[in-house]
């Protein structure tokens, strides 16, 4: 897997980089873009590709391993864990959107927009990206 396109990070966010990595990997697994047994970039590869401290990467991988999303194969490589072969229940997948939407909700309140106005925009965006 090409480590430069594995995940993207945003600096200047209140979300620590390791948290961003965890959320993105979980989203990609939930969406089926990463499948059980898929090998993910090593800590070294990803640290170099993103120019991020290697401990930040290993912290994210350890958490993902503890959460059962990744597992360590004999040797050193990490792969997507088997129990994620079945798609996660919808409720779990929806929950993954919460951090992103919380931020949008807070900004909508600051802009004094009504719920209807915001939901309309969200619906438009969803329709635009419909497969």
């Amino acid at each position, binding site marked *: 897997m090409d480590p430069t396109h594995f995940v993207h*990070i945003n*600096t*200047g*966010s*209140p*979300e*620590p*980089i*390791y*948290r961003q990595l965890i959320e993105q990997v979980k989203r990609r697994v939930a969406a089926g873009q990463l499948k059980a047994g898929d090998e993910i970039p090593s800590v*070294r590869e990803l*640290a*170099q590709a*993103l*120019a*991020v*401290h*290697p*401990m*930040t990467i290993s*912290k994210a991988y350890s958490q993902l391993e503890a959460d059962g999303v990744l597992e360590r194969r004999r040797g050193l490589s990490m792969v997507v864990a088997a129990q994620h072969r079945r798609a996660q229940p919808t409720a779990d997948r929806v929950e993954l959107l919460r951090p992103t939407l919380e931020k949008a909700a807070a900004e909508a309140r600051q802009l004094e927009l009504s719920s209807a106005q915001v939901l309309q925009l969200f619906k438009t965006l969803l329709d635009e990206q419909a497969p």
Partner: protein
Amino acid sequence: MTSPHFPHTDTPSAQLAGVSLSYAEGASVLNGLDWQLLPGQVVGLLGRNGAGKTTLLETLLGLREPQSGSVKVFGQDATRRDDATRARIGYVPQQNDLFQGFTAAQLLAYFRSFYPRWNEARVEGLLSRWEIPRDRPIRKLSGGQQQRLSIIRALAHEPDLLVLDEPVASLDPVGRRDFLRELVDQVLDRGTTVVFSTHILSDLERVAFNLAFLSRGRIALQAPLDELLEQVRAFTGSVTEMASLMARLGAQPLKRTPLEAGRERVLARLPANAALPAGVAADRVNLDDLFAELT
């Protein structure tokens, strides 16, 4: 607060205790400063312009002698370290001090003679990758090329302690990213201790695992960046509400800023699992906010 993340028990790479330094004009720059850098830590040094970051780094390197306090690098007094200890340190100064009449090749050959360890393959690789002419006088190189050459000189002898004082100010975003990758390699391959001073906070966010905030001549706070982003909140409310909230949460204010109408903004760590009372506004903060509040 010092919050070492690496469970090293070795001698600190650098240790400053009770360091005070004033200039002849009487301005006090460092004021009883305590600071410790553990092996393998990458520490971002943050401070406003004029806070004394360069003075602090020069003191750590033994280039300035403080009026009081002790400065040890790899266990030796910083101003009296021997050649072997000196060879373990790499330094990229804010103003490059390259000999302007030399060529890059002459400069590197000159420095090579001082170091028992010198990674010629890495030097050659970096000169090529960063497109630095080997045989043109340094004064004819661009600012960015000179800064890159200064970085190569600091990395060539594979230092155990790397001190970076605004090392990337003249580099464009691509040049900065190349530099950060070298830094990551250095950490991966050698576990080098790094102190990195810069105002480009996005660079620090990537590579600095720990942050040290220099304010009023002291390290006001040192902690892992992740921990600060996850725990620190900005609370706003009346002064009395804030006082009782801090007491209830058992939190120590890191910074208090008076607002109009008897209100204040308080920056504090929210203890893990602490529930916020209803009606209390607590904003998350990013690195820019932390810089603005804590330096």
